[in-house]
């Protein structure tokens, strides 16, 4: 029974991983740029939730959309001010620009909020829920469910709407998309906005039950990298499956080996993947 409990809570957290990793894979697939600040975007969203709740007493129903909106704007800004200018430059510039941004965000948070871990109160989303003999934290259940729905929604947006087709057209061939009247810059900027908004929602959701610290983004970024590689680069359904899998792997390794090693197992999985299946489990060789 405990094992089932561990697996279900792993799946719930994994759905949140899937949500923000979808944002990373969208940006990556659109323009071949890896956002090394992705985890720090999630961190920022967590602090948005923290500040909104503790200072303004806003409930999750308000602070989750608020974080999504703020991070969407941040994504647009980062694209317009930085990314647009470095994509045609050397690889060094591409990687260092988002990595520098990560440091800037991380240590600004460190400076403002200090290194202490903070949490939102357990009672934020009413205690625990019993489902079929499992006792689950209501906040985790809510976060997992919302994240799952939104990740599927993002996939539908990309595959079933005209906007999604325009985005994917730019991802496939920037110049050809331009020829048929799509503005690549707009679409890429939008991808950054959507990608960052996914971290906004995911961050505000996990803030309800996860510890919040300025450096939390470092391990979250690595989790997103592993998720994207496991799911296959650019694939939202892949990211969803991989996110769930990584949530479970992490929960099981914390339960069976010890909590300090849960990240080690995931990072080791990343190295193993790079050696044996860099295209991901679902990708084609």
């Amino acid at each position, binding site marked *: 029974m405990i094992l089932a409990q561990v697996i279900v809570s792993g799946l719930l957290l994994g759905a949140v991983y899937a949500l923000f990793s979808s944002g990373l894979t969208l940006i990556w697939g659109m323009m071949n740029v890896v956002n090394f600040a992705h985890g720090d975007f999630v961190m920022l969203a967590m602090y948005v939730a923290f500040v909104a709740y503790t200072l303004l007493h806003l409930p999750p129903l308000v602070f989750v959309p608020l974080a999504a909106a703020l991070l969407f704007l941040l994504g647009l800004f980062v694209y317009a001010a930085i990314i647009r200018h470095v994509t045609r430059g050397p690889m060094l510039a591409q990687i260092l*620009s988002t990595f*520098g941004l990560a440091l*800037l965000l991380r240590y600004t948070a460190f400076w403002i909020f200090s290194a202490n871990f903070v949490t939102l109160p357990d009672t934020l989303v009413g205690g625990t829920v019993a489902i079929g003999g499992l006792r689950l934290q209501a906040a985790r259940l809510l976060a997992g469910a919302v994240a799952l729905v939104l990740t599927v929604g993002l996939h539908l947006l990309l595959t079933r709407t005209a906007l999604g087709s325009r985005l994917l057209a730019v991802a496939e061939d920037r110049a050809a998309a331009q020829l048929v009247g799509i503005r690549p810059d707009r679409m890429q900027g939008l991808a950054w906005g959507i990608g960052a908004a996914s971290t906004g929602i995911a961050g505000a959701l996990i803030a309800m039950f996860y510890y919040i610290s300025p450096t939390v983004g470092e391990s979250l970024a690595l989790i997103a990298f592993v998720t994207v590689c496991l799911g296959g680069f650019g694939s939202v359904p892949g990211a969803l499956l991989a996110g769930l899998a990584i949530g479970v792997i992490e929960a099981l390794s914390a339960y069976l080996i010890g909590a*300090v*090693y849960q990240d080690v197992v995931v990072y080791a999985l990343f190295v193993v993947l790079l050696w044996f299946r*860099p295209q991901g489990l679902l990708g084609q060789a």
Partner: protein
Amino acid sequence: MRIGLGVAAVVLLLAAPAAVGDPFIQRVAALVLLTAISASAWNLIGGYAGQVSIGHAVFFGAGAYASLLVFKLFAWPPIAGAPFGIAVSLVLALLIGVPTFRLRGHYFSMATIAVAELIRIVVGNWPLLGAAVGLMGPAVPRGLADLSFLSPLPYFYIFAAVEAALLWVTWAMARSRTGYYLRAVRAGERAALSLGVPVLRYKLVALLLSAGFTALAGSLYAVMVGYVDPESVLGILVSVQMVIVAALGGAGTLFGPVLGAVILVPVQQATNAAFGGSGSGLTYIVYGAIILAIARFRPGGLLELLHWRPRRAA
């Protein structure tokens, strides 16, 4: 004439710390050189080969830990651990480089950061390596081989010798076939591949050289400081330091990392002295902003700026 001036300048710079006599300044001068060594080592792969590692702390930490581990286990002088640290680094470099160098550049960067974090967590929980507390060097020097000096001056000269050797290796590499191939790889990997450049092999050569020298820098750090813990030698900020020093001065230039170290290390020492522990957070905000600004506006670093003007005027 120019060579004569250069030699005179180097001799002056080398003699200056001894002439000043102030131990604080001597210590800063030694740290500048140590920082220049690790940044020059990063520059081999990050600058010349254009493969951006953001986890070089793993090599630095291997060297630093190996030095103090041989002291703890066998009571050897710490510097005797350097070869072991280098060996471990080379193995880690192959582990990271072989799979990722077949993929696009991002994968290498992501793998370096993942392996560095993995090793940091493992070391931080491994009793043999002192877990979170770390390892200590000899409390009192037992002989010259311990390289334990009160004055920073001997370290300054040791580091100067190592950096000179490393710069020579870099210079020789840049002029050799390897250097030309790496430049081709950096300019466009696919083009280089289609021209028959064995891309994977030469990227690995650069990474192995870089990892080895970074491990040596870590050993020298451990010898001088006499104390290592997971955060101070394996933390992400150790990697950040190498990246920013090299990128500020000029990644892929011979003297860029030296220039970066000459500028950044005194600034860092001054902010630490002025703000104490709370200053480190501010330092890294500024570092992040500098890295971002270089990437966005001046990917060539400061040296490029210096080189540009005369050409434009001419």
